[in-house]
């Protein structure tokens, strides 16, 4: 019942977000601000996570494949597939749902409880569109770049660790990276990324926009935003995978 209420109100909210915008010229600047806020400022954490996770994936894969008849380069191949198919698009998006999603819900929620959204509405501005649309557009534009960077850095992390620990020979690792490469896996990953970017920003903004009360409720919206967007990402991940890979 509760879920149905949220779903209904979410789509109504999207109707407002994609409703008539006021000044198209202002939107360009807002999108640029949000690209900086949501994308560029997430670069550090994404880079750090990717290098370390790439290293860990490589070590784990290598230590699990110890049958003599499996060639060494399979480690590189498996690491590449894990990173491109799942780690970068899904896990990094889940991390961004935590970072960016809570940020958006808190910002929009604060504007709501401090009557700033009312102030926009009073002026005759479409507040949902003015505040939220630039965030959605910015994330859908910038997240694919973040994810591609994450893919490179994860694979790089694996390469570094192969050299450092010798769990697999670096040139076998590189040979594995090039083995049986299907460019569609990247397309699939980027499609997921763009969908997840939409989910993160719109679900978080939805929760922020409908905050009622004060500072306490803003905190609560922020938490719910992260939980909801993560769950929706997981469901969408399953559906997209079934749709695109089978």
């Amino acid at each position, binding site marked *: 019942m509760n879920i149905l209420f949220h779903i209904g109100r979410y789509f109504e909210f999207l109707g407002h977000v994609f409703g*008539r915008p*006021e*000044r198209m010229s*202002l939107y360009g600047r807002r999108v640029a601000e949000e690209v900086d806020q949501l994308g560029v400022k997430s670069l550090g954490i994404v880079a750090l996570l990717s290098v370390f996770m790439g290293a860990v994936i490589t070590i784990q894969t290598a230590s699990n494949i110890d049958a003599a008849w499996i060639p060494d380069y399979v480690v590189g191949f498996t690491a590449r597939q894990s990173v491109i198919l799942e780690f970068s698009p899904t896990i990094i998006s889940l991390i961004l749902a935590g970072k960016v999603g809570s940020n958006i819900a808190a910002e929009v929620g*604060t*504007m709501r409880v*401090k*009557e*700033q959204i*009312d*102030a926009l*509405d*009073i*002026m*005759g*501005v*479409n507040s949902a569109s003015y505040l939220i649309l630039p965030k959605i557009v910015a994330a859908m534009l910038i997240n694919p770049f973040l994810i591609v960077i994450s893919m490179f850095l994860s694979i790089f992390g694996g390469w570094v660790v192969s050299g450092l620990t010798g769990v697999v020979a670096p040139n076998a690792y590189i040979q594995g990276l090039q083995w049986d490469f299907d460019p569609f896996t990247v397309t699939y990953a980027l499609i997921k990324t763009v969908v997840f970017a939409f989910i993160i920003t719109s679900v978080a903004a939805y929760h922020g926009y409908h905050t009622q009360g004060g500072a306490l409720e803003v905190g609560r919206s922020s938490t719910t935003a992260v939980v909801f967007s993560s769950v929706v990402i997981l469901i969408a991940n399953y559906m997209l995978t079934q749709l695109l890979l089978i």
Partner: protein
Amino acid sequence: MIEVIGLSKRFGTTQVLSDITATFAQGVVNQVIGKSGSGKSVLAKCIVGLHRPDEGRVLYDGRPFHELDLADKRTIRQEIGMLFQSAALFDSMTVLDNVMFPLRMFAGMTVAEMEKRARFCLERVNIVGKDVLFPAELSGGMQKRVGIARAIAMNPKYLFCDEPNSGLDPQTSILIDELIKEITEEYGTTTIVITHDMNSVIETGQNILFLHTGRCWWTGDREALLASDNEELKAFVFASELMRQARKGLLGSV
């Protein structure tokens, strides 16, 4: 002119406003007074459409606001200036950008013209040299004044001020009252001021509405207020000894 007809509003089971009927005249500062929690802010928000009334109509110069579609509502809203009780300045923008915001959205001016207009409005509320500060760097009273500057930036036809002088010193408070009066008379604005400041009510009241238990309990001007023998009104306005003394003095002189 704004007419409110039979307006009621409840939240859950609490009836906040019941059957309010009132007329707010053009070119006059209309004041709404009443105890804390009596529904003054809710009334203002119902009139501007931030809350949807359960019953009743609101006419802006004959245009029934709540019956219009979204596009027509926005047209009326662009003619409304509103100062919120909490000022509601945009945290992420400087003082100057806050005042320029409605101009940027709707005025179609060049940047230089917008800055000029914004500075002019800021000067009128006595905020000078604070252009680049952010709202968090201002005192509460200064935020209120920037809020007024933003509300008048577009030369609104309808001006709503929710407690414009709470948190201000008596001197600035009088200045703000005079400013609102000046703007109202100069531009023929329909102005609704919600206030706790009995000083300004007794001094300038032309059309006063007293809200009590969610009803429009009493209306009149300052002379009628002084002479009224409505118990609840007297208990509210002349709560302090000073006010009772003032009343005696003023009644003697009329």
